[in-house]
């Protein structure tokens, strides 16, 4: 899956959060995030509608010996 995080998006979203970043930062961040989000996208897309973050601790307790 192709995911493109543009440098413009990175610059805007960091500016919204008040972070003054180095000039080269948006390029590096957009490349890293594009690759990461593409790698995780199929797994995230396969999540059932009802999947909740809180189930992790329940599974952790359930899977103990």
């Amino acid at each position: 899956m192709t995911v493109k995080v543009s440098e413009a998006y990175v610059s805007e979203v960091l500016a919204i959060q008040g972070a003054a970043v180095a000039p080269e930062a948006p390029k590096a961040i957009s490349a890293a995030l594009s690759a990461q989000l593409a790698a995780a996208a199929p797994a995230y897309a396969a999540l059932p509608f009802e999947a909740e973050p809180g189930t992790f601790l329940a599974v952790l307790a359930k899977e103990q010996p």
Partner: protein
Amino acid sequence: MAADITGLTLTEVAARIRTREVSSTEVLDAVLARAKAVHPKLNCFLRIDEELARAAAKLADADFARGHLRGPLHGVPLAHKDMYYRAGVPSSCGSRVKGKEPEKNTATALKRLDAAGAIQFGVLHMAEFAYGPTGHNYHDGHCRNPWNTAHVTGGSSSGSGSSVAARAGFAALGSDTGGSVRLPAAICGITGLKVSYGRVSRAGAMPLSHSMDTVGPLTRSAQDCALLLGVLAGADPADPTAAIEPVPDYLARLAAPVKGMRVGIPMSYFTDDMDPSVGAALTESLKALESLGCEIVPVTLPAEMAAIDVAGTHVIAAEAAAYHGNWLRTRPQDYSPQVRARLERGLALPATRYIDALRLRGHALAEFSKAVFAKVDVLHAPCIPIPTPTIAETDVGGSPSMDRTLALMTKFMRPVNYLGLPSLALPCGFLASGLPVGMQLVGRPYAEDVILRLGHAFQQATDWHKREPKV
């Protein structure tokens, strides 16, 4: 005499104090002398509190003379990663952002070590805000590997790994959010325990990623990890994520047989990018486990291991960026460029993807357990697939392959954090270069007793963990 003392394991030195073979003061003298001797070469300490420690050791000896034994660590001097807060004392967390103001509370982990009788004699080097896998620190200088000072220690618990391996401490607290206990343990040739998520209270420990952070010991043996875990583990009103599961007698359970234990070897993911010399050491370790009566079972991991790794990255990035948001806005110049860049990446991650990473976690653990722990008791895996890189190779501008090297250092670590599983890292061989190779034994949730038992049995049959670097 001093070398005889510093060469002891934690279990041994605690026993010798209890049997009056040595006093706490004598032990402290030996440890301080060793720390002062190796620190100029390794840069493993951030501070040594000699005067306070000497007073505490005297008090411990006086208590003992009156017949009062505080606990299993009575009078044992320890130093810890500088991110465990003690009320009234500043903690720098390896940064220039923190470290001026005294902390208000004492970490539960320190309180439990105090109650067990341990004496804190200093604080140890760490990666800035525990956000780096190598041991580089541009504020405090880089920590150095006692086996070869040109090489990294692994991080972020760099000083814990370096000092314990160099016999300048019997054990140390580290923290493991994406490998920060296991990496320095494996790379420095010692034994480190990454606990199940919630097994040890995080209260009073610097947060990096609250969903992934774990507190764990670095020692010179699985037995020492068992001793410390028994002191540290358990529920804590100050940390709502601390697990309420009962704490077994980890030391007593070391004695149970490992014959018949099923040890899984992964058929994918953990086999990627394997250097033949590292692979050979891991293969030898399997033979040793087989000779102990373990059954070696190939296991097929879930296909989504790479996505699991990335999801772990998303959780850490988003949570770390949130913790550091205010300082990133107001004091960006106080961060090193590398750590600042890592933190800023999290600011750009969409919130929905962070939530997705959390939503995936329970499902991923269930799938991993079905694929692995339905077939085996423990998963045997490498810590890092390559020989330990040098400090220069992993420094900014040091090598065109720096990013890839750093990615390979964390690839086999982070999924274990994301899945919340316990893992014991321990030495399983040495390369021709003289650098150690580490393996990890990954267990079911809260099955620290099982991986410690297997690690202990392995260390009874091998002597890799007894090798000492010449510093």
